[in-house]
């Protein structure tokens, strides 16, 4: 099994090494980034299913994809850590929910779908936004409340949206995005788009009633909705066993099929999402439970250590970290050297720092922006003064 190899160069029987290798077993990074030779890997754990078939554990990938995953996940990790220090230096205020540790879910999902499929999630949305095509500059500007942000500085950390690539946010109220997501799926069915919606929620939100209401309606109307529970085992400070009588979230759909996936393994996520998309287009809703973990606390105001031990956190970091897993795979298949990967990480760090510097240059929104976008201009929504001569507020 490829994952059992820890050393970077292993002479000897590696059936998965390309047969036509150059004299040096190591390839340069730039070559690897374009190489689409298929590599077959198995996911770390088998899938567990409820009322449906299990997808295969064998996944096909390529050096190109591996390098892309590494690069993207390293970028996300760096972005979240930079957001952490920005928050501590009071440039980001309010709530800031960080996603580091869970990157595999965002990346794996993106790899399985197109930009026409919709994703909607809750407030831990920075990396999902990035995965959907958002830029670092938009992320940091929005976090700092600047004009250049994706929501013009008016949304904040919990309200990232990108309409043109099907990212519907970004929602602050726990669980409220799931009915919205089922509504997106309804619209897709209505327009006969052959696309699906992934509605992400957490293990805390899994106990919301509106989730089951929406699931019932989605199953009744056969909507292409995929409900993804990002189970990081803690709903803020409450562990899942203290909040849910039945923490098997993938089984909670009852008549709706479910799949439990190792959320720290990007290939498992990719495979599950592909499977789910095919299923949802034919048979209606399906639940995916991603077993994942967040290193930070619930948000920046939560240290994250009062309800779990530091040993637990560092244990997960050592054994299940998604980036480490990719790194080991890359070494095992001799796709890049350690130095090359470190260079990539440095490059990502530089990109993030540049984006932050650029975001700091972006101005704060103009005071007139307070009244823009409250209403859409249409059918005469203009608020006039009493004599109808002066327009007191034109709401564009």
């Amino acid at each position, binding site marked *: 099994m490829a994952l059992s190899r820890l050393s970077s160069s292993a002479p000897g029987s590696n059936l998965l090494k390309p047969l036509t290798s150059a004299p040096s077993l190591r390839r340069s990074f730039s070559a690897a980034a374009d190489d689409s030779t298929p590599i077959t890997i198995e996911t770390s754990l088998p899938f567990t299913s409820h009322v449906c078939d299990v997808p295969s554990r064998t996944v096909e990938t390529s050096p190109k994809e591996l390098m892309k995953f590494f690069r993207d996940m390293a970028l996300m990790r760096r972005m979240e850590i930079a957001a952490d220090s920005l928050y501590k230096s009071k440039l980001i205020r309010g709530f800031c929910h960080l996603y580091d540790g869970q990157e595999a879910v965002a990346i794996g999902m993106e790899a399985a779908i197109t930009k026409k499929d*919709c994703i*909607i999630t809750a407030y831990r949305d920075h990396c999902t936004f990035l995965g959907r095509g958002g830029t670092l500059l938009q992320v940091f500007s929005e976090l700092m409340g600047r004009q250049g*942000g*994706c*929501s*013009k*500085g*008016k*949304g*904040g950390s919990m*309200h990232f*949206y*990108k*309409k043109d690539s099907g990212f*519907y*946010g*970004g*929602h*602050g*109220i726990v669980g*409220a995005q*799931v*009915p*919205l*997501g*089922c*509504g*997106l799926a*309804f*619209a*897709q*069915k*209505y*327009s006969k788009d052959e696309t699906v919606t992934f509605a992400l929620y957490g293990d805390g939100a899994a106990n919301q*009633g*509106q989730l089951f*209401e*929406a699931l*019932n*309606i989605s199953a*009744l*109307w056969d909507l292409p909705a995929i409900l993804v529970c990002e189970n990081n085992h803690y709903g803020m400070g409450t562990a899942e066993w203290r909040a849910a009588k039945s923490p098997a979230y993938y089984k909670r759909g009852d008549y709706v099929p479910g799949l439990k996936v190792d959320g720290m393994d990007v290939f498992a996520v990719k495979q599950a999402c592909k499977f789910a998309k095919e299923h949802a287009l034919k048979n209606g809703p399906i639940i995916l439970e991603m077993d994942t973990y967040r290193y930070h606390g619930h948000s920046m105001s939560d240290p994250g250590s009062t309800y779990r031990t530091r040993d637990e956190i560092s244990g997960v970091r050592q054994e299940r970290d998604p980036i480490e897993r990719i790194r080991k795979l890359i070494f095992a298949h001799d796709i890049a050297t350690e130095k090359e990967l470190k260079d990539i990480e440095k490059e990502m760090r530089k990109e993030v720092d540049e984006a932050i510097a650029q975001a700091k240059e972006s101005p704060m929104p103009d005071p007139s922006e307070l009244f*823009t*976008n*409250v*209403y*859409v*201009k*249409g*059918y*005469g*929504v203009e*608020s*006039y*003064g*009493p*004599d*109808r001569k002066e327009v007191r507020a034109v709401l*564009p």
Partner: protein
Amino acid sequence: MATVFGATSAAISVSSNSRKLHLPSRRSLPGRRAGFLVVRSDAGANPNAGPRRAGQLITNAVATKADAAAPSAPSKPGHELLLFEALREGLEEEMARDPTVCVMGEDVGHYGGSYKVTKGLADKYGDLRVLDTPIAENSFTGMGIGAAMTGLRPIIEGMNMGFLLLAFNQISNNCGMLHYTSGGQFKIPVVIRGPGGVGRQLGAEHSQRLESYFQSIPGIQMVACSTPYNAKGLMKAAIRSDNPVILFEHVLLYNLKERIPDEEYVCSLEEAEMVRPGEHVTILTYSRMRYHVMQAAKTLVNKGYDPEVIDIRSLKPFDLHTIGNSVKKTHRVLIVEECMRTGGIGASLTAAITENFHDYLDAPIVCLSSQDVPTPYAATLEEVTVVQPAQIVTAVEELCQ
């Protein structure tokens, strides 16, 4: 203009295109009537009457068209229908016009709607456009909003407005605020509609007036219909609007009959309707209270007062232009509403008028609202909860002293 009288007082029939000066005959009714007396009128398009004759006793308190056929009158005779049919007509026309319009709610499809507003639509448009939902207001309101984010135009029906309290989070946060928090990326062109208001002994939970709870939500528009004419017009306008609109209907007004034009027409969402021009006092009202006011207006006219009655229609934003012009003319304001006293539409309207037109007021604004109590079941108590025409008459008399 349709005129309907509450069953607590005499019912009078009027033919509106007559200019005879006759005192309307009063017939006493045996006990309380369960329904409404239906009045035919020819008024269709513009409720603004012709020039008033100052000083002359106006016995017919209903605003009439000065001379029957004005040049702008519709050439076709118009057709008569009930308010719920007018809503259905508006809905049907918009669904035919725009394929992205769909309706979702409890029992709107096969059952035909609990107030028959969507009757026949499911057979015509199918299950995907007229959707029967389970009893899950929170989630189907959320689903409607999610669908609207992609470009569909759902109409979400609450079987009773009070049930939409369960969807308050979706309406407030997602419906009202998404356009703003996404920096303008998403628009939410939903229409949320349903009957509210105090009915006939429906009990406290089914007699709620939610306009007071929703009025602070930024980003939504609220309108209240009161006649078949404006019901159809507002329904069409609400569907065509790109903003989320909450359309408040009233349980007791569904069976109003009126003749409306055959041609297509749309009302403006932000404009108030001048029901009866006058000189002495401005009475602002909406929804069912319009009819109590008109009934009181007849009494007032007989006593020599000339009230100006405006149906504000647009509850958010207020049409301060029409209201302001009226205040400048009459200098006295009476607000008659069905909302609660505390934090209701009348309270906001009082504040808005005081802020903007204080210099024009000769007397403090009087606001008649429902009592701050849950609506009781007993008929006599329920009657006292809501503003009655006699109270309106007394208030005007006091105001005009």
